[in-house]
């Protein structure tokens, strides 16, 4: 290629030559430009993800002694309502009885609470339809009724009627002691 006359050929692509050095430098420059833009695009996109201080506040502790039997306490967790419900034996029995009913999102009641802690139900209080907050005790199953589009949840938080596709979600949580949980 050393005999390619640089500057004397106005169009480097004449007569189907092999790729010459000018083609190479064009491609190399293009690749470098794409690499630069791509390398900058990621930081510019990632900056919109949750920041360090936001993530640092992602878990909370909750004292279960604040809830009495038959009651529900709502706390804010990651900007959303968290339902902590102390179920009565009657409500637990109703939930277990329906374990094998025709459920839209099949799940046993056992799988929705921690072992030996059937009375405490911890759920994310966001309707799986379009994100409204379901009302405690509403609907014919005694669980929750979403005021927006009428989704009905049972006493295990499972979807039974209405447009919502899934059960109320159970967050990651653990018992720190008999009366204290850590969510997130």
């Amino acid at each position, binding site marked *: 290629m*050393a*005999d*390619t*006359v*640089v*500057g*004397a050929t106005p169009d480097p692509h004449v007569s189907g030559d092999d790729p010459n050095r000018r083609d190479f430098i064009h491609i190399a*420059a293009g690749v*470098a430009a794409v690499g*630069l833009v791509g390398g900058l695009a990621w*930081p*510019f996109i*990632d*900056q*919109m*993800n949750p*920041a*360090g*201080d*936001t993530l640092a506040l992602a878990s909370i502790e909750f004292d279960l002694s604040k809830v009495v039997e038959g009651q529900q306490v709502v706390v804010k967790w990651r900007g959303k309502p968290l339902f902590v419900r102390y179920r009565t034996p009657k409500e637990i029995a109703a939930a277990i009885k329906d374990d094998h009913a025709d459920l839209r999102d099949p799940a046993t009641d056992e799988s929705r609470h921690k072992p030996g802690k059937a009375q405490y139900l911890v759920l994310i209080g966001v309707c799986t339809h379009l994100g409204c907050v379901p009302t405690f005790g509403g609907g014919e199953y005694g669980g929750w009724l979403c005021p927006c589009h009428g989704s009905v949840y049972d006493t295990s938080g499972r979807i039974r009627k209405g447009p919502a596709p899934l059960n109320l979600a159970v967050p990651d949580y653990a018992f720190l002691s008999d009366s204290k949980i850590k969510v997130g």
Partner: protein
Amino acid sequence: MSGHSTYEPKTGFERWLDTRLPILRFANDTIVTFPTPKNLNYWWTFGGVLAMMLGIQIVTGIILAMHYVPHVDYAFNSVQRIMRDVNYGWLVRYMHANGASMFFIAVYIHMFRNLYYGSYKAPREVLWILGCVIYLLMIMTAFFGYVLPWGQMSFHGAVVITNLIGALPVVGPSITTWLWGGFAVDDPTLNRFFSLHYLLPFVIAGVVGLHIWALHVPGNNNPTGVNVTSPQDTVPFHPYYTVKDGFAISLFLIMFAVFVFYLPDSLGEVVNNVPANPLQTPQHIVPEWYLLPFYAILRAVPNKLMGVILMFGSIGTLFVLPWLDTSKVRSMRYRPTARIYFFIFIFSCLVLGVCGAHAPDDLVIPGATAPQFLDANLDSYVWLSRIGALYYFAYFWLITPVLGLTETPLPAPDSISTPVLSHPAAAPAGAVSSPEKRG
């Protein structure tokens, strides 16, 4: 150079679009086939650099605005949060803060190139004035932006600059109060400065559009300052100047990256890492480096109103420069005497910059004993800035008009191509420096 379009739509879609929105024709005529003098040197690449810097500042600025809180109680902490917690916030902020400095480096080179090659002269006066408008808008944007982190220098800089307006007779104090939205620089001031800081870059982008429009009517000036006389004097913008500008932009970006990654705080003031305290002014108040010469002119005058008038006058002078220059020859290549005064002018701007960074009473040569003259020691920076300011104004108002009438310029070539063809490098093959032999 504008008017006649060489665009030919190739596909059916391009023909369809061309009769409805000739945007491809516009792009083609602007950045592909635009006839550009073939002898532009690297001083002409800073227009492209500036366009890129404006883009970088707008993109990084929009990102910062997503995380910044314009409130006196939260502004400083929100900036710290950007630096510490927001993903890559440090990168975006350092790009934005150092980007402002890079923007000004480029604009100063662009302006000095213009002065040297006489690009502001007819028929490019409007192009030059639009450039001055952009520069003025840049100064305002940079000032508003510097206030936003709400550090000590931000706050007291805002106090000093807004008080400049108070020097105006009669209406001054009312205007200052109106700017503040209160009795002092406070939350309302910060909020409106944030609003204006977000607005002005888009105004700049609009004026840049006019600037490019005004450029494309007469076309580029060139290092000889001689008008384009034939198509042989020009080459199409693409690929010749897209590649040349691209190469210059690459080098410029490397310098930018060195600042962002290795010297991110070198151009800023340490004091601005202290939260704003309206009850205490820092020992030494200075603006960012790119405004130091004007700051030096302000302080050179021992009278508040005159200082302000001269400071604004130093920028205002630029607007009337096309009518102060009496020389028929554009390029200083052919004006050896003017060239000497021009380099002294650059030197005076640098001296004024150094003066602006020092306290007025600091001694230029420490330990030297100089007599007191009028109100200050002759060895002090205040006297040096007076000399610098005097030369700054004399260059535009005295030297430029008089020199154009009295100097004897060298003979300018008949066309752009003439000096190229008569240059030793253009001699036939076998000459010492024929580039085609290098393979």
